């Protein structure tokens, strides 16, 4: 049986990506370690994404609270608004939305940067200059994305809850102390831990896909655009796939 071309192309791409990931693990823990470049990437990836993730998180918390409020009032559970919003943000919406924003900003920027370096022979020039370009460019960026996204999500969730606090107080009066007490009391260890762990996988997926697409870019400037674009699309889909798997695993472990 001959598989359709689309399926063959998908399987081939998945195989290439797996091989690229394997190469990452085979090179990541062997010297020479590019600590300076890793630190620089942490700053660029983490710090530069904070304003965008902070802004979107704040709006998300505010809007979510304002949208939920009428239904909560109808059911007579308005007082539970901070708890419901807190669980929704920490467990699901915060990590996923922030990861999608991160995929859009960092996935595309890594894809375009490495893609343009590839087509202008800068990666070859690095190799000639005694540098392992895979370690210098890929390993550092993937580690930086993996470590920075969880930090950004913690900050984003906090900012989002501040947005929610504002949303609660637009149509009512809830003290800061009561709001935060309700949010924290509603969250169990089983809510926070799985949500936190999956953010590392989101960060890794965004980093490795952005690097894979950029590193394998071809066909000149058109190819660079295509790499950046497909880095965002594939990374965003992967965020949802990982999220789905995380829910199933959490369920199996009885953490839900």
């Amino acid at each position, binding site marked *: 049986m001959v598989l359709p071309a689309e399926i063959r192309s998908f399987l081939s791409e998945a195989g290439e990506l797996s091989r690229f990931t394997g190469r990452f693990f085979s090179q990541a823990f062997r010297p020479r370690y590019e600590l300076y470049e890793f630190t620089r990437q942490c700053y660029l990836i983490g710090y530069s994404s904070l304003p965008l993730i902070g802004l979107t998180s704040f709006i998300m918390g505010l809007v979510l609270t304002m949208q939920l409020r009428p239904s909560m009032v109808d059911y007579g559970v308005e007082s539970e608004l901070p708890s419901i919003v807190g669980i929704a943000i920490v467990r699901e919406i915060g990590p996923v939305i922030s990861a999608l924003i991160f995929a859009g900003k960092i996935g595309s920027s890594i894809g375009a940067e490495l893609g343009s370096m590839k087509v202008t022979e800068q990666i070859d020039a690095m190799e*000639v200059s005694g540098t392992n370009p895979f370690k210098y460019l890929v390993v550092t960026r993937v580690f930086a994305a993996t470590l920075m996204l969880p930090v950004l999500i913690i900050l984003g969730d906090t900012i989002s809850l501040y947005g929610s606090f504002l949303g609660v107080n637009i149509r009512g009066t809830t003290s800061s102390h009561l709001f935060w007490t309700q949010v924290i009391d509603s969250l169990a260890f089983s809510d926070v831990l799985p949500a936190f762990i999956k953010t590392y996988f989101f960060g890794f997926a965004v980093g490795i896909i952005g690097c894979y697409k950029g590193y394998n870019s071809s066909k000149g400037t058109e190819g660079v655009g295509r790499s950046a674009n497909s880095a965002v699309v594939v990374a965003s889909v992967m965020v949802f796939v990982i999220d789905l798997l995380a829910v199933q695993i959490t369920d199996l472990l009885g953490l839900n």
Partner: protein
Amino acid sequence: MPEEATIVQSDQLISADAANAVSILHLYKSFGNNHVLIDFNLAIKKGESVVVLGKSGSGKSVLIKCIIGLLKPDKGTIAVFGKNVSEIKEEELDKLRAKVGFLFQSNALYDSMTVRENLEFPLRRHWIKVSQAEVNKMVLEALDDVGLAHTVDMMPVELSGGMRKRIALARTLILKPEIILYDEPTTGLDPITGKEIIDLMNDIQEKYNTTSLIISHDMNCVRMTSDRVVILVEGKCYANDTWDRLQQNKDPKVKQFFE
């Protein structure tokens, strides 16, 4: 076979290995069904300037990428200073690369770095142990060689095409290489700037007594820089002689380049 061109024999290459900066023996390289290099042989003596001439897509760039170890040959031997590039370990290859400069066709300057950082990059990556004052001196000296000392703190995007080529050449020079590989050094430049780059290449050759391998299809560049010209046809070293003698050659495959 071309009538008067000297064809280098494989055994000559082997016996002359010690005196050669680069020896290439029975080199094969294919990409799928596209056979780019087929039993290619070439020897370059120390201090010599050899130009490889060929049509676009004839495998010239593939050849120099094999020499520097960016591409792995399917078969054959490439010895640089007597070391087989495709068989030595990564650390040894890095050491060897410090002796070989490579001027990329697209210049390959790092966009996110200043001119100074671009020049410092190979020094730092090859673990050359020098003080910062010494690094600064080396950077300025390399920039002086190409007449662009004033651009030291500029970004590549602020420079013209000719200036970028010169900066790329300065980056190549900073490690004082014994061999310089030039990939289409004058492509994309206007004739005047192209002539400036050619003069610069000759000055460098004279000043540092480097061995040069130049890939080009710009006949002006070939004429002005070559001690010897190798014509690459259908993946093979078709002719190998001086510019003057090849110009007189009647073989149609050689003649087409000089018409």
